[in-house]
């Protein structure tokens, strides 16, 4: 009898997790309440760790849960909770359907040096330089980008086709949404990873997780201490090798009856494959582990060292509260000194040191003002979302992005506080303005301004021309979005490197309403 219960539990659980995460990233109608995001994202390892260590959010303890889970059960996270891991399982399954030989994995040697080099590099850069490498390699964020960049347009396309069909029957429950691409350069990394992760998963199971993924490598190290493991019942095993063939991690050396626990992702396919019932999952037997542990204390040191280093990063990051120096290469774009970072991000500096570009905010934003950046924050921060006022503007009565961010790059901001948070200041360029160049009325900017920081003042003849009151401007970009001039806008928002407080617009009393018709 095969012990397939664990595998089935894993399959069902992971499919549910995947569905939830897919829904999170295709929910362009914003049906999920703001309270749903926290619990769903709580256990994602890298975002939770970042939020705890760098953003200093004490409640972000999901990563500790994962560490404990790993110490007890091994890399359960990788098969049960990591959306990218589950996606790879889907790819592997597809690969196996297409070619039988893709289904047979067999034991392979680990790329030990490569995987730990990437782990050290990621951790080192995180401590010394910033979040950049983790942004590229965090599995949750890679999954997020797959969804945002590739799945979302497909979802919209299907939605639009359905909406059109229903529209023919006079049903408007669905609505069409224009599909707009991001800036091309932002696709480079997501496309490269789609190819890399996709191909590796298609042919080699979890090779990506066991070679490139820094979260996988870190949890792999921890799992070497884990209590529960997969093990051989030596007396039953016939060395048929089925388990090794079924192992997506290629970590079962069946001839030597050895399992490389650092690569095992607890998928339990091996248990399912064993016709002799010679494999089981349970507490480790002491005699084996003590032997290993004694011979290799350096690995332990590495683990404690890296955890210590990661904690050290928090002080480093907290010390950097000064705004970044405007260096032309990294932030200046023609007429804009600074890009505009989303509300709740507090400052560009802290934002770019915390964001892993999972792009959930890009999907959650109802006005599509959040767009992946290319070089606006500097090339190292590519894909981190910025406020792009050519794509949309920040809705005055909305703080959805502040509800969804899992890494603490965008911190929660109550709606009333958000309305008084100045992300940047509008700058008027009279030389571009229709009123000045064409001598005709326009005022689209002022029309859209929610605070009337952008207001109209008398100009030549009967005309009115915009003027900006800095202190009540919140930098929402409605003016810039609405400005009709091409190719350059006559009004644009220059970002505040550190968000400031805007004043409340003041109002005088109006005259009493007339009590009779005035005609």
């Amino acid at each position, binding site marked *: 009898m095969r012990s397939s219960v664990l595998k089935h539990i894993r399959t069902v659980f992971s499919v549910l997790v995947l569905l939830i995460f897919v829904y999170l990233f295709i929910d362009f109608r914003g049906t999920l309440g703001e309270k749903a995001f926290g619990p769903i994202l709580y256990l994602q390892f890298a975002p939770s760790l970042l939020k705890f260590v760098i953003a200093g959010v004490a409640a972000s303890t999901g990563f500790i849960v994962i560490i404990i889970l790993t110490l007890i059960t091994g890399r359960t996270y990788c098969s049960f909770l990591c959306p990218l891991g589950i996606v790879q399982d889907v790819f592997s399954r597809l690969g196996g359907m297409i070619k039988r030989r893709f289904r047979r994995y067999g034991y392979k040697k680990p790329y030990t040096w490569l995987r730990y080099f990437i782990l050290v590099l990621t951790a080192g850069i995180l401590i010394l330089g910033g979040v950049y490498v983790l942004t590229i390699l965090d599995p949750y964020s890679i999954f997020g980008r797959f969804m945002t960049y590739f799945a979302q347009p497909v979802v919209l396309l299907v939605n639009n086709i359905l909406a059109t069909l229903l529209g023919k029957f006079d049903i408007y429950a669905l609505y069409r949404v224009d599909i707009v691409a991001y800036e091309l350069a932002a696709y480079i990394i997501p496309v490269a990873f789609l190819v890399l992760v996709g191909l590796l998963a298609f042919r080699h199971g979890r090779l990506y997780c066991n070679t490139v993924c820094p979260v996988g490598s870190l949890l792999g190290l921890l799992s070497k201490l884990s209590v529960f493991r997969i093990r051989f019942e030596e007396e039953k095993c016939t060395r048929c090798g089925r388990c090794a063939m079924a192992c997506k991690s290629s970590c079962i050396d069946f001839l030597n009856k050895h399992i490389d626990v650092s690569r095992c992702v607890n998928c339990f396919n091996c248990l399912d494959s064993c016709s002799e019932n010679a494999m089981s999952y349970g507490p480790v037997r002491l005699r084996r582990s003590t032997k290993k542990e004694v011979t290799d204390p350096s690995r332990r040191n590495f683990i404690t060292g890296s955890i210590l280093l990661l904690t050290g990063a928090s002080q480093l990051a907290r010390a950097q509260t000064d705004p970044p120096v405007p260096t032309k290469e990294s932030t200046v774009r023609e007429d804009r000194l600074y890009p505009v970072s989303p509300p709740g991000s507090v400052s560009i500096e802290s934002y770019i040191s915390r964001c892993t570009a999972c792009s959930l905010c890009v999907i959650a934003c109802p006005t599509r003002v959040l767009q992946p950046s290319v070089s606006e924050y500097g090339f190292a921060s590519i894909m981190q979302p910025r406020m792009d006022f050519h794509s949309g503007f920040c*809705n005055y009565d909305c703080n959805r992005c502040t509800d969804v961010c899992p890494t603490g790059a965008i911190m929660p901001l109550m709606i009333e506080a958000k309305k008084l948070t100045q992300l940047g200041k509008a700058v008027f360029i009279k030389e571009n303005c*229709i009123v000045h160049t064409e001598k005709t009325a326009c005022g689209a900017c002022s029309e*859209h301004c929610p605070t009337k920081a952008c207001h109209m003042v008398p100009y030549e003849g009967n005309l009115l021309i915009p003027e900006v009151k800095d202190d009540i401007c919140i930098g929402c970009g409605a003016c810039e979005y609405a400005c009709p001039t091409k190719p350059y806008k006559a009004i644009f928002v220059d970002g505040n490197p550190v968000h400031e407080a805007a004043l409340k617009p003041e109002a005088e009393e*109006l005259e009493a309403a007339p009590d*009779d*018709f005035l*005609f």
Partner: protein
Amino acid sequence: MKRRKFLRSSLGAGVAAGAMMSFGRYENLFGGKPLPSGADYDLVAVMGGEPAAMFDLGIQAMGGMGTFVSKGQKVLVKPNVGWDVVPDKGANTNPALVKRVIEHCLRAGAKEVYVFDNTCDNWVKCYKNSGIEQAAKDAGAKMVPGGSESYYQEVTIPNGKQLTKTKVHELVLSSDVFINVPILKHHSSARMTGALKNMMGVVWDRSYWHRNNLNQCIADYTLFAKKPALNIMDAYNVMMRNGPRGVSVGDLSNMKSLMISTDWVAIDAAGARMMGKEPSSVEHIALAAAMGAGNMDLSSMNIHRLKM
């Protein structure tokens, strides 16, 4: 040309059919007084009531909704839903009024009533927070999305000076009767927004209008074949400054008024006066009047004033 002819003839047929209807049955529904004789007013203005009640009274003076909507017709009701604000802020047409207008249309025998606007803020939020989506659904109308360019079709504006073609929402073309339900407001650049300016919410590319002489484009649009059969102007809470979005409720003047007219220039002229402006000082009204879109000379009109 074909479309224009068709629209003209169908509109004529609609009005004729409506006029032939017996009004007795209709009035009973609302418990109103019998129709005043010779009810062809240029403008009906009501003051002092709640929006729905004022409309009941006003439309009766106009001869009832049956004059404009006949059995089996598809009606488009176009309120102003431009902004993601609650009804109290006075930036969008009052939802209670929209609801009442729809109810009258359905009672007059409309087969289907549609409501939409190409909003300025995110349309999903505007529809929801303006209260208009709910009001429309409660009244039995269909709230139709307008947030994608694919809903808009290019049409030509014959003899437009600046605006010769524009993309209008498919509903404008497919509906039999078009009812314009603007809210009267201050507007930062057009000075005032009412019936004429409300048409910027049926087209897709507003920024073209802004780039190419805004006031002339607003006036040019009146040349487009599909004109509103009826204009209903919400002047209950009138935004006197900081329009068209408004900053706070302090911008509002509680005028408790409503105007109804088939002439959109006339209704805008009346609106301008309510805001203390000369109609001729609002450039798009003056341009539209000069182009023959309607009459802005209020002194020459047969105006029916009602107080509640």
